[in-house]
């Protein structure tokens, strides 16, 4: 027996889901699609019920994939629970009436009941139940108020039978229901609402967004440093004796020793440089990356549930249109700042193939993950803050230049932004923790096996001498085009497994200023880490991934070579200025060459 939770986005469905179900929550894909749903279980009077949280949807037309999936899941469901935002009853009823046509037992949950009362919205609950002929409950999802009755009401619900309506008839029925059950009274604007207007204000919104995002990253990086210091200590004290003992058992040398433990001597362990599966592999994933992932998604989840992220999407919509995307692509790109793997996974939610391709390529080429960012700030920052600025300006230059070109070259359309601006709501701690756990679990499952496998592979290549051979092979390129020493090749190859470990390997090479920036830029751009590459392959398919890789190599050659040429200018400020000028020149060139095609694109996006 299963219970489905269905409703519009932002109605507090996941809060209700979280209250009903226990800890064993799983996210899975609907067979044959990329649409994800969350599943949990509810025990009521000794019976266990499966509770499924269907992705939020406004309607059930068979056009969008997510809506198609929702519709087919609903027809397999036993009991439908339609969660409705009581402050937006009219619009929500559109989905309610569509759901009733499935003829299943159904319960209507008027969520955010408190909010509605504060906003001066009165709804006659009993009359609504009588008009719709289904049970109606009022709840407050965040506090869990009113949810105790939900299981018993669900189980006693009877199948509904209503005739199928045309959209026109549906809206007129909604109109008549609303006019008899809802009563609005006037009231003052609340503080939260003023803040809401302020954060998407054309003048104040963008600086506020910069301020918030800057501090979000600052907090993650500095608390990440503390946390990784702690984990490093822990590894030194607890894990090192075990590894050293194992090293003795293995005799201190040999293939197995090199593979598992890597390059360690009898007394101390350089976890980042040893390159063994059990040393670097375990340490980097659990000791460095995991703390940053946890912290990043803690902050990200907070901003998400607060309702701030959609506002960032709205503020950046205009900028993203310049690169062939719209505001919503901010979400995968932002997620990728934590770890590229969930970032690339999130491109599924984008509507068109063009958007998905552009977002995926831009994300895994130019966006460093959190662990990498923190090591970059440390390694490049040691040369002076201006070089950190130069690095991120360069990455942004690459990001926007690449996007402007991809916009012209990738066929297809980008739909117009159309999204609800949810009101600010205080995030709930339990839900936050559950969400964080789901995300961390995804990282552990998707990323760790590839990192460990990758390290083992690189170790084999190292032992068999392939790496030094590759070093010689690529040294003309690395020396001649990028102006970097031959040893960087080894770091670049390790970058395929973990970019952060590779940044750490660049440190002892003694690169100066701009050279260090060039090395990190090349390392970031040239290829995604193995875990990201695997998801990319899964999401885009073989052909598009091949295209993406070709683009990455071209971009790396241009950016790395260009930066090497610019390094002759010595002053990093001058380089930054030149980069800005180059972007403007590129934009003008594109305008000149592609203006005819652009007009055609806009036309097509209108007919969407």
């Amino acid at each position: 027996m299963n219970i489905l939770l269905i409703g519009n986005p932002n109605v507090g469905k996941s809060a209700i889901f979280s209250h009903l179900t226990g800890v064993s929550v799983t996210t899975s894909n609907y067979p044959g699609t990329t649409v994800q749903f969350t599943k949990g279980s509810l025990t009521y009077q000794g019976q266990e019920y499966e509770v499924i949280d269907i992705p939020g949807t406004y309607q059930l037309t068979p056009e969008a994939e997510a809506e198609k999936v929702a519709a087919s899941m609903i027809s397999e469901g036993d009991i439908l629970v339609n969660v409705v935002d009581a402050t937006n009853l009219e619009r929500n009823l559109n989905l309610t009436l569509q759901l009733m046509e499935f003829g299943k037992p159904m319960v209507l949950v008027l969520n955010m009941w408190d909010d509605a009362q504060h906003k001066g919205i009165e709804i006659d609950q009993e009359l609504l139940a009588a008009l719709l002929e289904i049970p109606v409950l009022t709840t407050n999802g965040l506090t869990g108020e009113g949810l105790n009755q939900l299981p018993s009401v669900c189980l006693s619900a009877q199948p509904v039978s209503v005739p199928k309506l045309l959209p026109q008839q549906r809206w007129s029925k909604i109109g008549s229901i609303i006019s008899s059950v809802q009563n609005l009274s006037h009231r003052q604007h609340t503080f939260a609402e003023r803040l809401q207007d302020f954060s998407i204000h054309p003048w104040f919104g963008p600086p506020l967004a910069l301020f918030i995002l800057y501090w979000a990253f600052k907090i993650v990086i500095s608390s990440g440093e503390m946390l990784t210091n702690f984990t490093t200590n822990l590894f030194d004290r607890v894990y090192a004796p075990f590894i050293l003992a194992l090293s003795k058992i293995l005799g201190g040398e040999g293939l197995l020793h090199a593979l598992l433990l890597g390059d360690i001597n009898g007394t101390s362990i350089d976890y980042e440089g040893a390159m063994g599966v059990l040393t670097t592999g375990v340490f980097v994933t659990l000791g460095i990356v995991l703390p940053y992932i946890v912290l990043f998604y803690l902050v990200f989840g907070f901003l998400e549930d607060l309702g701030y992220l959609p506002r960032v999407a709205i503020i950046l919509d205009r900028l993203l249109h310049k690169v062939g995307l719209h505001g919503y692509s901010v979400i995968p790109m932002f997620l990728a700042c934590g770890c590229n793997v969930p970032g690339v996974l999130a491109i599924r939610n984008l509507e068109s193939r063009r958007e998905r391709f552009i977002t995926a390529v831009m994300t895994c080429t130019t966006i460093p993950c959190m662990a990498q960012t923190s090591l970059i700030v440390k390694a490049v920052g040691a040369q002076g803050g201006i070089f950190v600025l130069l690095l991120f300006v360069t990455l942004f230059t690459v990001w926007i230049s690449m996007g402007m070109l991809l916009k012209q070259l990738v066929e297809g359309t980008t739909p117009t932004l159309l999204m609800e601006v949810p009101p600010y709501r205080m995030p709930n701690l339990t839900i936050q923790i559950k969400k964080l756990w789901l995300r961390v679990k995804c990282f552990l499952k998707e990323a760790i096996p590839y990192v460990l496998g990758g390290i083992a592979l690189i170790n084999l290549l190292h032992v068999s001498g392939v790496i030094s051979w590759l070093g010689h092979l690529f040294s003309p390129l690395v020396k001649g085009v990028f102006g970097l020493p031959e040893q960087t090749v080894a770091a670049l190859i390790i970058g395929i497994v973990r970019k952060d470990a590779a940044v750490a390997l660049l440190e002892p090479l003694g690169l100066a200023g701009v050279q260090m920036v060039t090395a990190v830029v090349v390392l970031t751009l040239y290829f995604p880490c193995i875990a990201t590459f695997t998801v990319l392959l899964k999401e885009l398919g073989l052909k598009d991934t091949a295209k993406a890789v070709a683009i990455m190599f071209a971009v790396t050659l241009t950016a790395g070579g260009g930066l090497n040429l610019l390094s002759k200018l010595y002053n990093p400020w001058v380089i930054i200025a030149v980069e800005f000028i180059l972007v403007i020149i590129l934009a003008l060139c594109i305008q000149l060459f592609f203006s005819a095609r652009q007009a055609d694109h806009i036309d097509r996006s209108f007919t969407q």
Partner: protein
Amino acid sequence: MQKSKLPLSALKKEETGVVVFVQGGESMRRRLEALGIRLGAKIKKKSKLFGLGPVIVSVGNAEIAVGYGMVTRIFVEVDRK
């Protein structure tokens, strides 16, 4: 007082109008309808970001960001002196 038909983009800030015409395909109309932007709905322009940025409108109790591509294709009737 005189009624005039304008695209959403020509509405002033805080001005309220009634949706009278949506120029676009079936799928675009459905997307807008599901968010409450349908013929006869009262719509208020809250603010607008720079240039061709999205416009924020309020419909019922919800606020919706509408990308510029759609803003010029939603027509509303307003009372103007």
